[in-house]
């Protein structure tokens, strides 16, 4: 039982924090919200040079051999900095999925490129129903000689506009059980018949509607076993929910710090507002939530890092952190008063991300149901 990071992780955190404070100021974050690509390639290159894009891959694939927990430390700082760009998509949704499901050949060919920052990826899972159950997958892939042919529409596909490959979850066989007959494909984002239309979101992240119209994918781009993809998708969701949770912890930590600072600085009625008991208690509530979020999120990341099943840990984390982070940004708004009520204020960035983070990879209701199932209810 040890709640501290290792010395190496502390160094990584400090390095990441300093790097992002310099290279990813809020000005850049705002610019990228209206940038078509959503990230500056120069920053991406630097992150690749630092080894971040390969951090969680084994050294034999050109990675840093880091653990999921190491990656989590990085993600927390990215959440604190509101880092724009396809890191999460490429590394968590893309790279870790290939590492998990890919053949030795696929790993060899793709992971080093990801590590070098040369390849961007994303995942196309969600469909118009907007839910995360197996039955929501209606996108179909039928075998046709050496290819599969994809038909369907995916929504809320982050960074699809810049991705080189899109991992697409599609139905390859009909079955009474919706969990059966699903497969994952590594789709070249420039395939004929594939089109991306941007969605506009409050957090300014780059989400897309991706339409597959007769998109041909070579058999060799099947990721994992045919028709047995759902178990892999569940692992993707688990990793992603945990990763998003630690990312949100970074945001929550930053919101707490900026709010406490504001409460110390802002004077009304001749005294800092942080000397009023109502404000003190709000801040205390925020501190309680930040600590709770941190521990529950890191426990999930740790469990995954240790190769445990971690379903319960992840769902507890995502359900709790999503709602607590949102609650916390709302409290921060109340403490900031009017000054926080402009797009120019950093709080906006966190407030919007908290809402997005609450939803993506399953909201509180979704994960409470997972927990209920885990408890045998």
């Amino acid at each position: 039982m040890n709640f501290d990071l290792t010395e190496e992780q502390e160094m990584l955190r400090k390095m990441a924090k300093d790097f992002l404070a310099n290279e990813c100021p809020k000005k850049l974050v705002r610019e990228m919200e209206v940038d078509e690509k959503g990230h500056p390639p120069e920053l991406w290159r630097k992150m690749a040079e630092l080894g971040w894009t390969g951090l969680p891959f084994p050294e034999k694939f050109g990675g840093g051999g880091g653990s999921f927990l190491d990656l989590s430390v990085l993600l927390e700082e990215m959440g604190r900095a509101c880092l724009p760009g396809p890191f999460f998509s490429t590394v968590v949704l893309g790279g870790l999925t290939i590492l998990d499901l890919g053949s030795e050949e696929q790993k060899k060919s793709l992971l080093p490129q990801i590590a070098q920052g040369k390849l961007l990826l994303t995942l196309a899972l969600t469909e118009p129903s907007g839910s995360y159950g197996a039955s929501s997958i209606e996108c179909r892939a039928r075998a046709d000689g050496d290819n599969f042919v994809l038909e369907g529409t995916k929504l809320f596909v982050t960074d699809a506009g810049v991705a080189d490959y899109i991992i697409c979850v599609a139905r390859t066989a009909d079955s009474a059980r919706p969990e059966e007959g699903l497969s994952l494909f590594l789709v070249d984002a420039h395939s004929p018949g594939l089109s991306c239309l941007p969605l506009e979101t409050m957090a300014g992240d780059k989400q897309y509607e991706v339409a597959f119209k007769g998109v041909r994918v070579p058999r060799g781009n099947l990721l994992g076993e045919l028709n047995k993809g759902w178990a892999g998708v569940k692992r993707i969701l688990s990793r992603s929910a945990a990763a998003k949770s630690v990312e949100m912890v970074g945001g929550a930590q930053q919101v707490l710090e900026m709010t406490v600072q504001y409460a110390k600085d802002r004077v009304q009625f001749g005294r800092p507002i942080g000397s009023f008991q109502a404000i003190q208690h709000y801040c205390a509530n925020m501190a309680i939530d930040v600590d709770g979020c941190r521990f529950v999120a890191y426990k999930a990341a740790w469990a995954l890092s240790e190769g445990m099943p971690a379903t319960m840990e992840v769902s507890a984390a995502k359900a709790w952190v999503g709602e607590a982070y949102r609650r916390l940004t709302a409290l921060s708004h109340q403490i900031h008063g009017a000054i926080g009520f402009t797009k120019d204020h950093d709080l906006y960035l966190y407030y919007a991300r908290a809402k997005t983070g609450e939803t993506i990879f399953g909201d509180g209701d979704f994960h409470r149901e997972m927990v209920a199932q885990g408890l045998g209810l």
Partner: protein
Amino acid sequence: MDFAFTPEQEAFRAEVRRFLEGEIKLGSFAPGCDAWIIGHSPEFSRKIAAKGWIGLVWPKEYGGQGKTYIDRLVLTEELLRYGAPVASHWFSDRQMGTAILAYGTPEQKAELLPRIIRAEIFFGIGMSEPGAGSDLASLQCRAQEQDDCYVLNGQKVWTSGAHAFTHLYLVARTDPDAPKHKGISELIVPMDLPGITINPIVDLTGHKHFNEVFFDNVRLPKKYLVGQKNRGWYQIASQLDFERSGIERLMSNYALFQSLFEYARQTRRDGRPLSQDPIIRHRLAQLAIEFEVGRLLIYRVACVLSQGKAPNFEAALAKTFCTHFEQKLACEATQILGHYGTLLASSRRVPFSGYATSSYLFSPGYTIQGGTSEILKNIVALRGLGLPSE
């Protein structure tokens, strides 16, 4: 007790509804959230004026209708239900006219009230400053007597719709040497005076209806002082009660409220309508219940007013509850919409005009503007319950 409206009031409600539905059909407006704050349309306000619906409760001698505050409740409830663009005349009708009636000179009443009622002039409110938010009495904006004028210097901030108003109802410091509550006066400022600069502030939704307003040696004729010099702090209290007690504190997002229920009935997820999901049913029912409770708290204030009494802590109490409801509505709506609840109004695939997202982004302000919930709870505790101050 009687929780029903009279047949006359119901008939009036029907008339308002017919009018608004007619206007929608004519394309004169599309229902929206927060239309009482951001929906500036002098043209539409003139139509409302033509119906006699500005200054409904004011004396007939100034062009008002002399009706009750319950009648006004009926009117405002329908304007909000339909999300009509009433921002231009809203503040004048809600609190400025009433303040002029209470403290204005006969000349001011005669000059200003009929013009408000005819929608010729529109008032905004100039209260907050960068250093004076909850602690309004610490305001620094100066109005210095000089000859037959007050010379204005300083800054206001969070001034809703400043660009769209013809007049600003300003609180400024007329005696910098007096204790802070005793050197404040109320002034009416025509916005076309030289020396006024307006800088828009972009709010979380991307709208620019909040503003900074700068006064640089603005010369304001003395006739624009309202009430007694240096007594502004004491005059303003009842105005704040009017500011806080209206049903706009509950129904800013009525378009969202209504659309959400409709959406839940019609949208299928995981093989059934959302409204059949027990958790969502539960959330929606709770919203409906809280809406009803909030409405009653607001109706109560209207009843107090209609008896010719001044609301006091009741307005603070109602606003606290209702603005909390509005935030909860936005939060629940975005959650029920899931991924769709993160799409901006301008996005493809956005459901019901993006009301949910807009509301989520706009709602942090509800518990801040017009008195933070903390200040209001202080008022309930001190004025309402008689608890001792610190």
